[in-house]
């Protein structure tokens, strides 16, 4: 029983650390901008937060720096892809390599240095007492609790508000919104920046919550898993949550099974989430069901008023 609780509780921790990036990327892609640099921006968020934590011992300030780092990357990416209408794949790759490289460089001084400052587990009184449910859901850190609110909020925003309606239209047919007098460029900037800020928070989950150290490249492909989840979930935050939990489960199952199956090489278990990513991506994007694809029609297409 304890094993199951430990696996499920770990699954949530893992899931939340990819969900910030996943939901952020969902907003960005719904607006028509695909950001391939998730992994790089996550690393930047992770290292920026950790450096601030080591130097100031101020958690709120560290978190603010994480958000600002994401915003800065978002501004640059939006400038390239929205204003200059540059190719999104190429720019995304640039974000990826730049973020990965810069985070390794900036993090040199804090590699191996303990910050002793992170989002601590905050059991919620009363709720934590519920058998099974309590330890799984209500003995978590603040970033996990925040996600409990963000998921329903983003669903409500996308499907139930006027601005969500505009967002859904934005990724499909920006020209239609433009002719209705809306500012396509401002909207795309806003969603790209929001997306990047959330991606950076995913990085903070890694260095300031789930673990509390820094080593270069420590997100270990979580950015890519988040990126794959967006398409896997048909750009829907609820399905994304389910997908992230599934990945979390597979990942924690692996690390727990290691103890019980000592004969099997550990690499097999560590590889499980990535194998699952590949399978999920094939299932999500393959042409198995001849149905209308959920991919925003204007994804990756720069909006140019002149060429309407």
């Amino acid at each position, binding site marked *: 029983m304890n094993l199951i609780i430990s696996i499920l509780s770990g699954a949530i921790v893992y899931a939340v650390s990819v969900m910030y990036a996943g939901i952020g990327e969902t907003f960005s892609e719904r607006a028509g901008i695909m950001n391939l640099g998730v992994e790089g921006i996550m690393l930047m968020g992770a290292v920026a937060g950790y450096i601030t934590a080591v130097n100031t011992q101020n958690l709120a300030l560290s978190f603010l720096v994480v958000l600002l780092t994401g915003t800065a990357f978002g501004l640059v990416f939006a400038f390239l892809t929205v204003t200059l209408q540059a190719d999104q794949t190429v720019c995304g790759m640039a974000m990826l390599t730049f973020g990965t490289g810069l985070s390794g460089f900036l993090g040199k001084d804090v590699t191996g240095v303990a910050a002793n400052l992170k989002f601590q587990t905050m059991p919620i009184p009363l709720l934590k007492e519920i058998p099974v449910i309590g330890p799984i859901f209500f003995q978590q850190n603040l970033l996990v609790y925040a996600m409990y609110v963000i998921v329903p909020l983003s669903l409500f925003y996308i499907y*139930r*508000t006027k601005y969500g309606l505009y967002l*859904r239209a934005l990724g499909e047919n920006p020209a239609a919104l433009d002719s209705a007098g809306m500012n396509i460029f401002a909207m795309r900037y806003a969603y790209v920046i929001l997306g990047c800020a959330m991606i950076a928070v995913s990085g903070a989950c890694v260095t300031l919550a789930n673990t509390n150290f820094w080593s270069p490249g420590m997100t270990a492909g979580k950015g890519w898993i988040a990126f794959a989840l967006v398409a896997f979930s048909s750009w829907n935050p609820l399905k994304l949550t389910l997908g992230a939990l599934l990945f979390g489960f597979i990942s924690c199952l692996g690390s727990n099974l290691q103890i019980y199956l000592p004969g099997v090489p550990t690499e097999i278990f560590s590889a499980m989430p990535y194998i699952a990513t590949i399978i999920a991506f094939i299932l999500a994007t393959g042409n198995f069901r001849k149905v*209308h694809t959920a991919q925003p029609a204007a994804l990756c297409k720069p909006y140019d008023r002149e060429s309407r």
Partner: protein
Amino acid sequence: MKEPVIEMRNITKRFGDVIANENVNLSLYPGEIHALLGENGAGKSTLMNVLTGIYRPNSGEIYYHGKKVSIRSPKQAVDMGIGMVHQHFRLIPPLSVAENVFLYMPDCKKILRQKEMEEAIDACSREFHLDVDASAKVWQLSVGEQQRVEIIKLLYRGADILILDEPSAVLTAQEAVEMFKVLRKMADSGKSVIIISHKMNEVMQNADRITVLKGGRVEDTMEAADATIDRLTRAVVGDREFVPQVRQNRTFTEEIVLQAEGLSVKNDKGLEAVRNVSFTIHAGEIFGIAGVAGNGQKELTEAIAGLRKIQKGKVTVNGEDLTSLSVRKHIDKGVSFIPEDRLSMGLVPSLDMADNMILKHFGSEKFSRRGILKKKVMDETAASYIERYDIKTAGIHSPVGLMSGGNQQKLLIAREVNGNPSLLVASYPVRGLDIGATEAIHKILLEESAKGTAILLVSEELDEIFQMADRIGVMCDGNMMAVLDRESADYETIGKLMSGEQL
């Protein structure tokens, strides 16, 4: 006479040195369907863009209910109750009908109430007999239904003046009939409708008044009751000599080029779309296939061109069995194909004319040597096509996507006939083209048949079939209902066969 809702007086619009509209006068009355007729490039769209605030005229005045107005932006036009349905719909497929409408409503509530929105749209669609389910997602709707959603978008915003750009171009014959019924109901309720068209029959049958534009000027304005094909033709094409290309005599020989035996073909959904169809085409013969679009013509032509798998039956060309051969083999054996969708299947819009011209022939000795293209030969050939087929283009190196539909089609046909085919499969070759381009295309087809090429011509315009074909096959629901000689066929018989009645 009632007071006009809109009066456009002496509208002139120039783009640089090009005059798109010159001293155009147009008045629109409440309750009328007014048709703007003219060839492509006659200035119909420019005039409507002036009315909807997209362009500002260089001179001229617009009066709205007798008062002089200047329409500065599309938004202002919408506020005045002027709305336009473009030829390419501006709908967002994953959103529901109601969401598509409310996207444009300035008073859309911050928090969406789907039920309320859908009820409002349903009420609006019932009022005008538009019959669209407001909760359906747009991608689930047929083209005809999508067009009605565009109309609802305008009506719900309170439009009194509806402009429809080539509304029947995307519809099947039955859908077009339905659409005109809807437009008539709206006119009866006091709204004014402008339709842009280049189909004379359609305009004569459905409009109250007709204004003909030619070269940017109003050539003629008349009551539909006073219109005759003769008068309209003269106004549309002007003094230019217009002789419909009519097939004078049967020139074909007894030599059989295409023989289709018991063909059965499936459509994209895996259902049988062509059922046990057999026919032959002789050298120099034009074989017309009449039928409402979607009755297996597309599948049949694709099967003959080798693009679609033949489930049962056999296709032979010049005595050779091509049934299960590749597309390349079909081309090599002399089968040419003009697909119904020229831009997605026939041409590559972003490539230039020279590149498009050799799409099927790049491997031939003429255009390449050991895998390297002979650019000079390509350019020369392209230049010779421009002259020979009177193709208007900004140059052989500008993308063909920028050419007009008629010129694209001329280029496509030029490419297909220059492979010296023994069989030419032409699917709706003049769909969406104006009179001038249609004439040119028909001329090329007739020249080809005089050379001895067997031609399979698919069309939904009976006029075209009767004008061009030697023999006529009628398709309905995948069956070849009958094959008739043109001399012994008449419109009524063909019409009955098209609707599935046996002879």
